[in-house]
């Protein structure tokens, strides 16, 4: 396609426009206040990681036709199990793995409810959310200590580049893997047979079935792998970001990632861009609270990400088109 016409469609122009503005603002800010700019950008990357992982979970599920509003619960329980494994074993690798397995098991539960039992998927997701809230609340005892949290991994000479190096190449492993997963999933969804089949199942399961694709298996696999993404997001919260667990610590991130998924038009790379926007809003929020010079009550600043989510949803949902069979249980004839 001709590049000009390609860009002229408004869908492509908006992200380009936003990223250019972001780029220019960053350069100006870096010249004025190098340290603050750097810390805001680092915080942006950090804050966007769980959201983009949650959005990847949503994308995998919805591309195959399952609405997953249980991401919040998947993150929360994985964060808890990851933390508890860290308390028992002291091995961070096993702990992250435990978090991912927890996410996968909750994905299996969601798939069982929505594919096999054909429950209403929103109720199925709510079951997972409430279950995670109850289980973590019941089994959590305060005062547990761990061996530590995952440390940043500096990528050699790349990390010495001013600004870019400190922001992009001096992060802990889950943050790197989130970025890699974004591009990996973009490739899998749009360039491989499996991705084509997944999208077919999400758009028109009957046609896919006629062509010999096993709709049930495809949905199960996608929802379980989505659960792994959410589990990784949960592990990020307790093992990489905070280092400890609190009740209901996900604080709506699972739902924010759904908005991010819609904003990113069900594309991994698009969702990453949207997640960076949210990460930036969060980073600014903490920065403003840190300064304390602006006389705004912290509750109003705390509202910012949630308001942004509503605005994004209201502004973009009508224009973005979800997979056609999203949320519809498939009945074999």
């Amino acid at each position, binding site marked *: 396609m001709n590049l000009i016409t390609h860009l002229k469609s408004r869908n492509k122009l908006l992200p380009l426009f936003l990223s250019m503005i972001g780029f220019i603002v960053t350069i100006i800010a870096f010249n004025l206040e190098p340290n603050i700019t750097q810390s805001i950008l680092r915080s942006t990357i950090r804050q966007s990681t769980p959201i983009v992982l949650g959005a990847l979970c949503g994308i995998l599920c919805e591309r195959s036709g399952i609405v997953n509003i249980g991401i919040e619960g998947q993150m929360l329980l994985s964060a808890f199990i990851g933390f508890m494994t860290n308390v028992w074993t002291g091995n961070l690798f096993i702990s992250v793995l435990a978090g991912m397995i927890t996410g996968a098991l909750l994905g299996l539960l969601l798939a069982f409810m929505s594919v096999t039992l054909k429950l209403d998927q929103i109720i199925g997701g709510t079951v997972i959310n409430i279950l995670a809230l109850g289980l973590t609340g*019941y089994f959590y005892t305060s005062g547990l200590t761990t061996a530590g949290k995952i440390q940043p991994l500096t990528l050699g000479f790349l990390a010495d580049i001013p600004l870019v190096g400190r922001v992009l190449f001096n992060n802990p492993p889950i943050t790197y893997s989130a970025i890699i997963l974004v591009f990996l999933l973009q490739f899998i969804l749009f360039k491989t047979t499996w991705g084509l089949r997944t999208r077919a199942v999400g758009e028109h399961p009957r046609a896919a079935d006629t062509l010999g694709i096993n709709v049930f298996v495809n949905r199960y696999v996608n929802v379980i792998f989505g659960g792994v993404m959410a589990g990784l997001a949960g592990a990020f919260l307790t093992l990489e970001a905070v280092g400890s667990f609190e009740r209901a610590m996900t604080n709506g991130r699972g739902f924010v990632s759904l908005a991010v998924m819609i904003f990113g038009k069900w594309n991994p790379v698009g969702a990453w861009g949207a997640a960076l926007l949210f990460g930036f809003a969060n980073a600014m929020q903490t920065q403003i609270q840190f300064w304390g010079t602006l006389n705004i009550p912290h509750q109003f600043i705390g509202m910012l990400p949630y308001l942004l989510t509503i605005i994004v949803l209201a502004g973009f949902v009508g224009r973005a088109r979800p997979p056609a069979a999203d949320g519809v249980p498939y009945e074999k004839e």
Partner: protein
Amino acid sequence: MTEENLKQPGYFTWLNQLWLSIRVPLAAVLLALLVGAVILWVSGVNPLGAYAALFEGAFGRQIYLQRTLEKATPLIFSGLSVAFAFKAGLFNIGAQGQLLLGALTSAIIGFTITGLPALIHIPLALLGGALVGAIFGAIPGALKTFTGAHEVITTIMLNYIAINITDYLADGPLKDPSPSNVVARTPSIADSAVISTPEIALTFGVIIALIVMLLTSILVFLLFKHIKFKVKNKILLIFIRFSFVLMAGLGAAFLVKVIAPKFYTQPLRFLSYSAIPLPIGFLIALVVAVIVWFILIRTTIGFEIRTVGLNQHAAKYAGIKVRLLIILAMVISGFLAGLGGSIETQGIVGRFQPGFNTGLGFDGITIALLGRNNPLGVIPAALLVGSMKAGSNVMQFQAGVASQIIDVIQALMLFFVAADMIVRWVIRAKSKPEGESIKLTTGWGNQ
């Protein structure tokens, strides 16, 4: 109505129907308690001891019973709120936020205005809270109709916004200025806005009066079911029937209340109660549940709302204003949640304090589904969950079980009620569920 049901003639068809509609929720509750017992056992607690302590804590003493009724009151409202939205095909997870703002508003009206008679002050504060809840509920409804933003996400985001707003107000401009206060809370409301909890002395006479009232009501109801009136208007007919039931019941109650105490005057120490506490807020909740049921089942607007919930396209073809009704359903849903918050402020807490009413929105989902989305079914479901909440304190104290196990059991109840296939298989029930099934997942972008 199912086929096996149609074949059975006689008086007990409605009883049979009642049984058919409650057996699945009942089995779901039992299954959830069973799985909960396994979790308790795994974590090293004797499940029987824990459940016994739970029951003791919910009903064992008069003060416990009062706490159960008080806990059930806001739950009835959040259950009604969610159920009403469900009927229109909307999933209102925002009952939480609507309830918070309602509770705060009624506290504001309660402590700023003084010198009003209680007869004006109480309803004023109640209505104020309910209206703010309705306005807050209208936002996701309007967003859905005009932009297509799905109410599940917008209501959850609005919950967080409501938490932030109320936290700010209770810790800032509206903070209790008394010198002894250090926490974030508003001043306590004026006495004229407080909803009281009178007690009915539990004598033999009253108990017999209640039983006779119940039996007569059933008898009269059965009788009038089989007498043909020459009244065309259905609503009038129902009204006549119910007033007969009410009259018969009240008459019997009056007779027994007047005559019986002459013979038995000693209070009956049943379950060590000396009196039955009767929170007025709970009574209001019961009345509101009946009104909501009436609106949904017996009015045109209720019919239209249910039609929109079943099939929007068909509703549009039938000339129903779908957009308007979706907003209206959310407004009523928010109104109910806000009213629940007001009653909690005026009847139980006495002021607004952040953190006193968290989680009620999620509870409303479980309660609405347990009650089969029927406004009248919400009442026993809310009583069940309320009794568990009230009993969890004693359970924590006596059996050493963290009270959060209640949330786990609640999630299991929700799962089993939603997965009624499993429950039907367990209790070997072949028939399809009564009433309309709920369909909420309609994708993100539809309007």
